């Protein structure tokens, strides 16, 4: 039995220690907002936060997540949307939407450390793949969210 803290709640899971965090979240804990895209940390669809830092959960063995604060897309807001999520709606970012949980997690982590985002900074921090090509709107949404967070 491994003890985990996911979105502020403690839970235990009975899985092999090499099981990737992604599959524990999806199949064991049933938090399916975090997506499987490539399995090798190449696309970012599975991005979650460990202690506030973005990680690609398909390549994090669950043993490494023990003792950390795990945050998934389901846990970034209580009942109210975050500025990033609101900006995603305002800019009408998602198409198929499959990559967007990972995009929002990557953008959220970037903005936490970079309240004044730059295009170069966004390029370096958000390297996830979107097959629908929502990138121009993602860029706009990140800038919009930053502006809103600065005003709040």
């Amino acid at each position: 039995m491994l003890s985990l803290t996911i979105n502020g709640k403690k839970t235990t899971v009975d899985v092999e220690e090499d099981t990737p965090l992604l599959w524990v979240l999806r199949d064991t804990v049933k938090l399916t907002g975090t997506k499987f895209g490539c399995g090798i940390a190449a696309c970012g669809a599975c991005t979650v936060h460990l202690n506030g830092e973005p990680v690609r959960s398909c390549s994090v063995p669950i043993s490494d997540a023990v003792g950390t604060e795990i945050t998934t897309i389901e846990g970034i807001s209580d009942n109210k949307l975050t500025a990033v999520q609101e900006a995603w709606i305002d800019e009408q970012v998602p198409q198929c939407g499959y990559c967007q949980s990972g995009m929002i997690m990557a953008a959220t982590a970037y903005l936490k450390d970079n309240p004044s985002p730059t295009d170069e900074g966004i390029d370096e921090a958000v390297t996830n793949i979107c097959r629908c090509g929502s990138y121009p709107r993602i860029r706009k949404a990140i800038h919009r969210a930053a502006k809103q967070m600065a005003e709040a």
Partner: protein
Amino acid sequence: MALMKLTRRKFLIAGGLVGGGLAIGFGLGDDGPENAALQATTSSGEFALNAWIKINQSGAITIAIPQAEMGQGVYTSLSMLVAEELEVDLTSITPEMAPLAPVYVNATALMDSLPFSDGHHNGEATVGAWGMRKVAGMLGVQATGGSTSVRNAWEPMQKAGAMAREMLIKAAALQWNVSADDCAASNGKIIHKSSGKSASYGEFVETASRIEIPDDIPLKAASARTMIGKSQPRLDIPEKVNGSAVYGVDIDLPNMAYAAVKLCPVFGGTVASWDENAVLKMPGVIKAVRFETGVAVIADSFWRAKKAVEVLPVTFDEGANAELSSKAIFAKFEQQLASDEGRSYIDEGDALEQIAQANTVVSATYKAPFLAHACMEPMNCTALVGENDVEVWMPNQAQTLIAWFAEKVADVPAENVKLHTPYLGGGFGRRLEIDLVVMAVSIAKELKGRPVKLIWTRENDVQHDMYRPAALANFKGTLNSSGDIDAWQNRVASPSVTRSFTKRMLPWADSDMPDNTTAEGAADIPYKISNMLMEHVPTPLEIPVGYWRSVGHSYNAFFSEGFMDEMAWAAKKDPLAFRLDHISEHKDFSAVLQKLKEVSDWSTPLPEGRGRGVALHESFGSIVGQVVEITVNKDKEISVDKVFCVVDCGTVVNPDTVKAQMESGIIFGLSAALFGEITIEKGRVVQENFPDYDMVRLNNCPEIEVHLAPSGRPLGGVGEPATPPIAPAVVNAIFAATKTRIRELPLSKHGYTA
């Protein structure tokens, strides 16, 4: 959004569709058979007013959407068509996947799949059209593809809204005992004009559901529309920013098991031997299953299934294709072009004679590689096989075919097949295929009574796709004394997508027939050329090929618009002006190009090291012109800085969705142009995952400026038409900047990095 539980009502392919031609019922009015399928999905207090609209007594409105939502915004745009006439706010609508029923057949996709249905083509190939029609009839079923959703729904769904509105007005008049002429519908309510009293549609829906009404209610004039043509926020977006949207891969059922597979890497190979006992004691493993092309492990989690199948000992009989390579395939194209006359799709004037007589002939050979779809959501299908029934949850673009194959493989009566279509994490044509449902039901049959979720890894996906065909084209062109094109000859060798797809559905239907997808974007170019010959040389291959966003246009536009640019430079004319000179009779095309010239500031020269390229292409009923600005240095580091895109898709339903689809199509095509290549060695795909099948990301994504330029032309599609022009626009820009002509994609193959 909640998913309706779907019960298959009718088996379309065996039914009247093929013999019965193209007539589609509108499913309007009271209790006709067309409404039965939706009526069967109503809950207590809810009534279906026709095949598209359900309203419950508290006024909640549900719209049945026949097409799958795969990112193209169809749940919203089709809801808008109904809402416009039903006089309701879009936010009061809940879109739901429609049940499987003949009334929802995609007749536009069917018509578009017929050769030469658009009237462009005049070649000898039309003699085979009858045979093609027969096949298309079988394929053109309830499906999502060919940029057809809005075109197909345009009239029926507005009519559905109008008729439901009139039924509600009549019902209110009856209940209030007033004249229907004194009642009006507005914002989800019926208003009695004289007294000013009003009540929600929910108050009248039960009565309305029993009212018969003529189906000739006139639709609003374009000038009276309040919703169509004005950007509406997409209804599916809120649940796509908080992780709650349910895709196929997210389906979770009580007692569900998971399956992972190992497939023979060689196309056409089969399992020779295996040792299932080696994995049965591994943690969580429930069962191992052997099927023709591979093996599966069923376990209590996907990770455990995947770990077990990876170590499951299996040997494959690689079959006849074990030495097949991309090199051999391109050699076959060359050999076919040299030895086979092919089939002409346009033959005007005498191009061969003009070319034989000319002093100077411009010649070029263009090549395009195989491409994978690589939808973000890996392929998956969940199946529950019972003693005499089967239930399937699958993100798919072809409900009729999926249900049919579930029925065949499970060997159950058609009426005992249930299909659920959740959100699709991308489709791009890949989810028209039946391979996943066949595999999932085959595996689940071995664990009857338990749902089994089959998930493919990304490696499975990249290496076992139905690929965009590779193709090779030989061009010859001549100019007259005033520098206009005199003759144009284009011979293209490629496998036929329609033939390959048909063979997978109906092996007995495999035959060499004309295929519009082999000539689209090649025979129907918008330029006026007196002597023009376009021939396709069928080159069947062992590699399965399928419908990839924009299909034949995806490579033919690269070929045609690349060569058009070569002709312009040979004539020493400005490439955009040269195109304008050749389309003088087609005003819609000229208008798009003129607009493009203006918005892209085409006439202002760019500094050294930068270049501008243009491409113009019509597909799926829409004209798209693009100007690309690039920066490139001597080390072949290329930056695609900006794309100007002008689209004429006729009447626009949701303008922001049209813009989003243009951005999407451009980036999809740009990923392919820069990096996309599937290569075959030893009968198998070399690439495995995103590192060697790369995509455009934020850091190399251009700025995109979309301009809508709707003319009076008929409604066109928007899901695909932005993809074809981007590759030629980019190579044309490289030529403008460096005088290097690229005739083969991807650019990475020629040393370019982005």
